[in-house]
C-alpha cells in the first residue's frame, strides 16, 4: 500500500492560524499525523529575561488575539498570588465579566469559522456580524477591540459604571435572541448534520486517555471545567458545565453554542451580585519585587490554561510558562485524525478550536 505525505498547513483556507501537520495517507485514509510547532514560535517565554515583570503583562496579552483577555488576567492573577496582593472586589467582578464577554467573542468567532469550513458562508457572515456587537462593547469599555490592556497587577485600569453595565447586559440579551437563529441552524440544518454528525468521534475513555481539556472533553461526556474549582469568584455564581455525550464534531459545536448562552447568563448573575456604586477602589498596586512561584489555572474558551510563574526577588521573572489548552489538545487531535478520510481532516482539526498562537507562543 503506497503511502503519501501531504503537508496540512501552514496556509490552508480553513485554518484560522498556521498549524503545521504532516499527514501520512494510504489512499484516502489518514494513517498518521506529525505535528510541528515553530512556524510562529516567537519565544515569548524567553522574554522574561529582558522585560520587567510589570511590563510582561503587555507581552502576555499579545500571545494570542482571541484569548487575549484571559492571558492578561491569568498573568496578573499569578503575580498577585505570589506577592499576596488583595485585589479589590469590584475589580475582580469586572475581570470576570470581561472574561465571559471574551468567551462569547471567542466562541462566536469559532462558530463562524466552523460554518465557513464546510462552506456555509451565509451562517459564517451572520455569526461574525453578531460578534461585531461584542467587539464594540469591548472598545467602549476597555478602549481596544482585541487587545484590551485593562488588567494590571493589583486590579483593573478602568471601571464600568452600573448604568453602562445594565446597558451592556441589554445588548447581550438582544444578541442572545439574535443568536437563537444561528443555534437553530446549527442544531437542525440537515447538511450540517450530515457533514458533522458522526465525524471524528472521541469516546469518553479516549478523551480521558489523551488528557483532553475544554469543550473537546466536555463534548465527550467528561465533566471538566476549571471554573468549578471556584477561583476568581466563580464560586459565587451558579452554573453547570455544558456536557454532551456524542463526542462527534456536532457535539463539540453544540457545546460551544450552549456555552455562549451560559456566558450571557453568567454575566447577568455577575452584574446582579457585584458590589454597586461609584468610586469603589479598582486597584491595589504592590511595591517591591515578587519572590516565589505559583501555578494558576483559568478556564479559557478552549479549555484549561495553566500558568507557572517563578520569581526570584529581582524585577525580572525567572520563568514564565503558559500551558495553553490547544497544546493539551494536540494529542487528542492527532488521535482523532488517524483513521479518518482526508476530506474530514479540516473539519476535525477545526473542532478542537486550534489557537496556534497560544500553542507556539
Amino acid at each position, binding site marked *: 500500500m503506497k503511502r503519501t505525505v501531504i503537508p496540512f498547513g501552514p496556509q490552508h483556507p480553513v485554518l484560522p492560524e498556521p498549524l503545521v501537520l504532516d499527514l501520512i495517507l494510504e489512499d484516502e485514509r489518514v494513517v498518521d499525523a506529525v505535528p510541528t510547532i515553530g512556524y510562529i514560535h516567537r519565544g515569548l517565554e524567553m522574554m522574561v*529575561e529582558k522585560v520587567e515583570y510589570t511590563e510582561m503583562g503587555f507581552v502576555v496579552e499579545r500571545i494570542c488575539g482571541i484569548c487575549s483577555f484571559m492571558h492578561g488576567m491569568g498573568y496578573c492573577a499569578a503575580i498577585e498570588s505570589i506577592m499576596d496582593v488583595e485585589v479589590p472586589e469590584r475589580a475582580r467582578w469586572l475581570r470576570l465579566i470581561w472574561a465571559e464577554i471574551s468567551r462569547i467573542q471567542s466562541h462566536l468567532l469559532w462558530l463562524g469559522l466552523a460554518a465557513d469550513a464546510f462552506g456555509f458562508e451565509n451562517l459564517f457572515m451572520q455569526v461574525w456580524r453578531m460578534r461585531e456587537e461584542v467587539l464594540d462593547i469591548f472598545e467602549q469599555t476597555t478602549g481596544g477591540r482585541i487587545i484590551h490592556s485593562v488588567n494590571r497587577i493589583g486590579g483593573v485600569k478602568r471601571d464600568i459604571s452600573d448604568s453602562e453595565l445594565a446597558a451592556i447586559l441589554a445588548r447581550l440579551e438582544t444578541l442572545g435572541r439574535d443568536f437563537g437563529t444561528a443555534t437553530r441552524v446549527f442544531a437542525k440544518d440537515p447538511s450540517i448534520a450530515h457533514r458533522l454528525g458522526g465525524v471524528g468521534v472521541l469516546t469518553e475513555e479516549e478523551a*480521558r486517555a*489523551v488528557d483532553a481539556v475544554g469543550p473537546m472533553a466536555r463534548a465527550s461526556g467528561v465533566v471538566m471545567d476549571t471554573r468549578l*474549582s471556584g477561583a476568581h469568584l466563580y464560586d459565587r455564581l451558579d452554573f453547570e458545565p455544558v456536557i454532551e455525550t456524542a463526542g462527534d464534531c456536532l457535539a463539540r459545536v453544540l457545546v460551544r453554542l450552549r456555552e455562549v448562552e451560559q456566558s450571557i447568563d453568567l454575566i447577568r448573575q455577575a452584574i446582579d451580585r457585584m458590589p454597586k456604586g461609584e468610586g469603589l477602589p479598582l486597584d491595589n498596586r504592590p511595591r517591591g519585587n515578587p519572590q516565589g512561584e505559583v501555578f494558576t489555572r483559568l478556564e479559557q474558551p478552549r479549555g484549561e490554561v495553566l500558568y507557572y510563574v*517563578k520569581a526570584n526577588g529581582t524585577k525580572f521573572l525567572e520563568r514564565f510558562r503558559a500551558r495553553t489548552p490547544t497544546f*493539551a489538545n494536540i494529542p487528542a487531535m492527532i*488521535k482523532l485524525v488517524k483513521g479518518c478520510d482526508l476530506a474530514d481532516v479540516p473539519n476535525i482539526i477545526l473542532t478542537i478550536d486550534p489557537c496556534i498562537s497560544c500553542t507556539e507562543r
Partner: protein
Amino acid sequence: MDRTAFLSRVEAYRNAGWRLALINATTVMAAEGEEEGAFELAWGFARDGRPGEGADEAAGTLELIRETVKLGEEVPSVSGFFGAAFLYENELRELFGIDVTGIEVDLKGQLYKTATRIPFSHRAVRERLEREARS
C-alpha cells in the same frame, strides 16, 4: 532521581483517574561555587469534577511531583501512562536539552523550529544574559 519511586507515583495518579496537566522545566543557572546548573522539573496532575459535599475530595485541585535533575541526568518518560505526555517530553528535549528516555512518539527534534538550538539550555541562557549585560 529515583526512577522506580517516581514511576510508581505516576502510575498511582493514572490509576486514580487524574489527568496530566503539564510537564514543566525551569533552567536553574549554577550558583556561586557550583560547577553546573540544574533543571527543576514539575509534573502537574489535575483532578476534574465538581468539588462538593460528599463528592470527590480532591476534585478541582492540581497536585505536583517535583524533581531536580542535574545536567545530563536521564529522565524516564511517562508516556506509557498518559497519552498526552509525548508532546511535553519532546518539548523538554528540544527546548531544554533534557534527556528523556523512552518516549512513545518520538518526534526526533522536529517539533520546534527555533533559531537557536535548545534555547533554554544553560549555555544559551548564559550567552543571552552576557549579551544583554554588554549592550
